[in-house]
């Protein structure tokens, strides 16, 4: 049980990373990663909604007729998003201000919907929580990495602290909209290049092993 929990959790975090592997939830990924605090906040808010909605949908999966399941899922997800929206407004008004419209838009984040349909609707509540946690944290990690790159190059700061010195001019392009597309594209190139090298090494080792056997 514990083993399965960890496996499902790690699957979402690494193997099926929602941003780099599944390429889901592009809108918030591109829009809020202008600063590390925004990326982190968005990731954690999404994780919370994902875990809660996965849990509830998994609980009700046997009672909801399949014809009305999509509206039912939407209502569950929208409820938790409203909770997040209210909590952020009350306790973190600055973050709520900078994420703005993208908090209610968590409702239509494809990651949440995809996991509800592909995982929570078919699995028990405990593994659904693990899946939500893994996917959510995988999403959070990707957002944090992207926003760190953009904040560092765009403004020379990390979490608001000047890292590259006070005289760093800042490349405004990376904080503006085009920077989102470019950073994600280039990060994916790096991801693919590293993964390609690892795969090639693995294949070479396998070929060598087979050669020695022959």
């Amino acid at each position, binding site marked *: 049980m514990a083993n399965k929990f960890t496996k499902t959790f790690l699957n979402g975090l690494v193997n099926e990373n929602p941003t780099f592997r599944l390429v889901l939830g592009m809108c918030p990924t591109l*829009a809020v990663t202008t600063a590390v605090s925004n990326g982190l906040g968005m990731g954690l808010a999404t994780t919370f909604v994902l875990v809660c909605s996965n849990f509830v949908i998994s609980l009700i999966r046997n009672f909801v007729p399949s014809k009305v399941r999509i509206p039912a899922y939407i209502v569950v997800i*929208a409820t938790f998003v409203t909770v997040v929206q209210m909590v952020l407004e009350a306790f973190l008004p600055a973050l709520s201000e900078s994420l703005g419209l993208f908090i209610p838009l968590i409702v239509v*984040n494809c990651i949440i919907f995809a996991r509800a349909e592909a995982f929570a609707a078919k699995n028990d509540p405990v593994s659904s929580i693990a899946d939500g946690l893994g996917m959510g944290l995988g999403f959070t990690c990707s957002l944090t990495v992207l926003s760190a790159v953009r904040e560092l190059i765009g403004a020379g700061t990390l979490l608001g602290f000047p890292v590259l010195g006070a005289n760093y001019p800042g490349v405004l392009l990376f904080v*503006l*909209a085009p920077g*989102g*597309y470019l950073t994600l594209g280039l990060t994916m*190139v790096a991801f*693919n290049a590293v993964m390609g090298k690892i795969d090639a090494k693995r294949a070479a080792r396998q070929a060598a092993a087979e050669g020695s056997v022959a």
Partner: protein
Amino acid sequence: MKILLILLSGILVNNFVMSKFYGTCPFLGVSKKVSTAAGMGIAVTFVMGVASLVTYLVQKYILEPLNITYLQTIAFILVIAVLVQLVEMVINKVSPSLYKALGVYLPLITTNCAVLGVTILNMTEGYNLIESVVNGVGSALGFMLAIVLFAGVRERLESSKIPKCFQGFPSTLIAAGLMAIAFLGFQGLI
């Protein structure tokens, strides 16, 4: 005059995809061919126009009198889901050929964050009924402009030689980034 400004800002200056990142998923997913991109654009334009109208009425005559505006997100997404279903049924009855061409993309409009985004934006900006509808249609036309232009770029990309680790999504994203730089040029228009 204000209406014209809203329309122009929706299409060019505050282009939903290129400067606001609403509706990026269908923008990247349904932009492989110009013809499907145009079909998607038309369907989204229709849904966004009608959704702006209906959500305005829901907000003014249901949510505000009952003092339950905190249910805005839930109410709006349900309105949009119902609306998309309705549009699907109407198109199916009226023009089966168009229905066939759009088929798969129609239900996807529910999860297009541009639709939910524009309806909530209308409320936060305090637009009246006509301004809301104009804003909805204008933003949708901007979406359509971006997706059709980008589909043209991608058709070219398909037939060119690209290094292996750039293939697929990375090259698409970089192309989108370059196009977004071009759209930055409209910034000074208004």
